[in-house]
């Protein structure tokens, strides 16, 4: 009797160990053909399609989107309905089968192989540290520069180690453990870096969106005819990019090591997009040189791509400033965390009709709070105040954006 077959997740790069399942392209119970794409898997940065190696029916799929899958572990079982399933152990033996065993007598004689890049080996020799006594935290037990630093700290004893960050251990309880996706890991690393290194200050100003609302209302049908949505965000990006030209400090990055500020030649505005898998910020290159219509069109395209996880690396990098719409669901005020290595980020809060005083009278106006979060190492409160004053001026008198 035939037994259904496991298809194992192969090494689709040169020496990859894992990937993240992006989505299944087949369901359990579906018929499947050899070479038919069954899944999209993200490895490092590229998303690749994995085709089926067998004909038959999909009996089982292992894992769900977002799960980390390991090379050599089953991805899918294919067979005929009712066929006995191979057990997981069988799959593991299959992948081990081809390994050539090293004879035992030699294994005991040979020293354990040390995995470390040449730079770490050289540094270890210099410091007089025996790498065979250092445990590696890298892939496959590879010893990293950080591991070596830690080992050095141990060797040199107390004073050096007081500067090291203390790792706290928590009792996490018994809840279900969900591995972080690549995207979540990236967000986590970048945000915690920012939180630890940047001196965050948020400066808040209010803006009357009345005139801009009218302008947008007039131009909206034209944009619709041209096939895209004219969003308030497009006007915001245009106004920010134009204002940034006079405030290079907020379109800059700090190289702390060299004590230099890098004033960027281009104004590339990243726009936060909320996707099912987390926040992604595609980048509008040279936003200051684009019309509001072009910006609106481009944001539409980028957001769609972001949600489908189809952005190219190029569309994700080289941003110099970020605009994030934090009021789309609700809330009064929120402060953003810098998108490193940028020096400022603008948070746009919810627009709401509020009573305000105009010419001694209380009137109702569509008001919005804008929060500029900046790196105090790079700029001061007065810089932020001037920037915001100019920006609000441009937004409240939007005739210059009339042409779209």
């Amino acid at each position, binding site marked *: 009797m035939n037994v259904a077959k496991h298809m194992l997740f*192969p090494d689709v790069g040169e020496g990859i160990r894992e990937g993240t399942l992006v989505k299944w392209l087949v369901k359990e119970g579906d018929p499947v053909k050899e070479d038919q794409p069954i899944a999209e898997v993200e490895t490092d*940065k590229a998303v*690749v*399609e994995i085709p089926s*190696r067998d004909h038959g029916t999909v009996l089982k799929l292992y894992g769900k989107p977002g799960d980390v899958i390991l090379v050599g572990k089953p991805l899918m079982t294919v067979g005929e309905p009712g066929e006995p399933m191979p057990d997981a152990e069988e799959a593991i033996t299959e992948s081990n089968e081809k390994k*050539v065993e090293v004879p035992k007598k030699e294994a005991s004689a040979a020293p354990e192989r040390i995995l470390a890049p040449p730079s770490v080996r050289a540094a270890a020799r210099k410091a007089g540290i025996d790498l065979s006594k250092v445990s590696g935290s890298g892939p496959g037990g590879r010893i990293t520069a950080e591991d070596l630093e830690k080992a050095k700290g141990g060797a040199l004893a107390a004073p050096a180690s007081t500067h090291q960050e203390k790792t706290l251990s928590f009792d996490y309880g018994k809840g279900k453990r969900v591995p972080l996706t690549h995207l979540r890991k990236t967000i986590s690393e970048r945000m915690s870096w920012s939180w630890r290194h940047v001196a965050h200050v948020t400066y808040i100003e209010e803006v009357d969106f009345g005139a801009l609302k009218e302008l947008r209302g007039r131009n909206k049908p034209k944009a619709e005819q041209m096939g895209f949505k004219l969003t308030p965000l497009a006007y915001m990006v245009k106004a920010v990019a134009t204002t940034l030209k006079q405030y290079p400090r907020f379109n800059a990055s700090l190289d702390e090591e060299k004590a230099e500020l890098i004033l960027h030649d281009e104004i590339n505005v990243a726009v936060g997009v909320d996707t099912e898998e987390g926040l992604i910020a595609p980048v509008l290159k040279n936003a200051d040189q684009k019309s509001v219509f072009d910006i609106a069109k481009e944001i539409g395209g980028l957001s769609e791509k972001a949600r489908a996880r189809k952005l190219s*690396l190029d569309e994700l990098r080289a941003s110099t400033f970020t605009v994030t719409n934090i009021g789309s669901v609700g809330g009064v005020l929120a402060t953003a965390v810098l998108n490193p290595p940028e020096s400022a980020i603008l948070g746009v809060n919810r627009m709401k009709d509020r009573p305000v005083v105009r010419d001694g009278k209380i009137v109702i106006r569509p008001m919005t709070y804008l929060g500029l979060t900046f790196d105090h190492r790079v700029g001061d409160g007065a810089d932020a105040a001037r920037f915001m004053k100019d920006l609000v001026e441009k937004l409240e008198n939007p005739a210059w954006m009339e042409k779209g």
Partner: protein
Amino acid sequence: MSRKKVFEAQIEYLQILDEKGNVDASLDPKLDELTLKKMYETMVRSRAMDKKAISLQRQGRCYTYVPTEGQEAAQVGSVMASKKEDWMVPAFRENAAYLAKGVSMRTLFLYWMGHEEGSRFEKDQNCFPVSIPVGSQVGHAVGLAWAAKIQGKRQAAITFFGDGASSEGDFHESANFAGVFQIPCVFICQNNQYAISTPRARQTRSETIAQKAIAYGFEGIQVDGNDVLAMYVATKKALEKGYAGKGPTLIEAITYRIAAHTTSDDPKRYRDEAEVEAWRKKDPIARFQTYLKKNGFWNEAYEKEVQEKAAREVEEAVKKAEGFQANPEDMFKYLYQDLTPDLRQQMQEMKQSLEG
């Protein structure tokens, strides 16, 4: 005392079949139906093999694979202009050249599946194995052609390399040597616009790659590499020149790598999809199909037959390659005529461990 011009050179560009499949009648080599169909079928077979190999790699049935898609004409046109005795010395993106030389798909799949057997060609096939180190094969080709010249044979060598290899020392040393000794070697640079991720603009300040031949005292020509007829004509002329003792030629085939550099590459990181689309419109197979049709050699029924035959050939070749029983000793066997003592010892140890 004087100031005068002592040297002047120019580089020609050859295209016979344009992007839409229109032929320049005055340049058309007017090949017979059988030859034309073999050209077409070889290109189609190469593309069918490409598609399957990429899928196999993604299933873990084949290791890193190097796709040929887009460069079929540059390889098939030139190899088909050569004689059976002429050597074909490839880099690593020459599946179509191997097929044109008569190498079986089974052999090619064996190579990409990691078997030494994939570098074993039939005795009279006169092919060299895949050469991964960039540019290293160019010197081998010059050596082979030099040997032919010394032996007084009417035989030449064709070697393929890329725009990236044209910056390697191997290429320059080999070209210089071939020029000095008037060696019958045809240097074919498939300028596919990228050396992995390095674009042509960053490769050399020279206006053409073909002009590099001028420095070494022989002829260089630029050819539309997606035009199988132009590649045929240019290579034929270069070979005839070589047989007649008039030395080497450098052919710069202007082409484009449509697929990724290898299955481990993500070209979206360094080039625009719009650029790829523009090159798809210059596809070598599509334009040649138009030419065949105009000459009455192509119809739907023929196309169906060619495609089905190629698909069958691919399936059978994969089956044979996957059924191949490798001998682990092969790893040691082919570098030296006689095994060195340390390799012999390693082989013994491996055998013991496999038996034990």
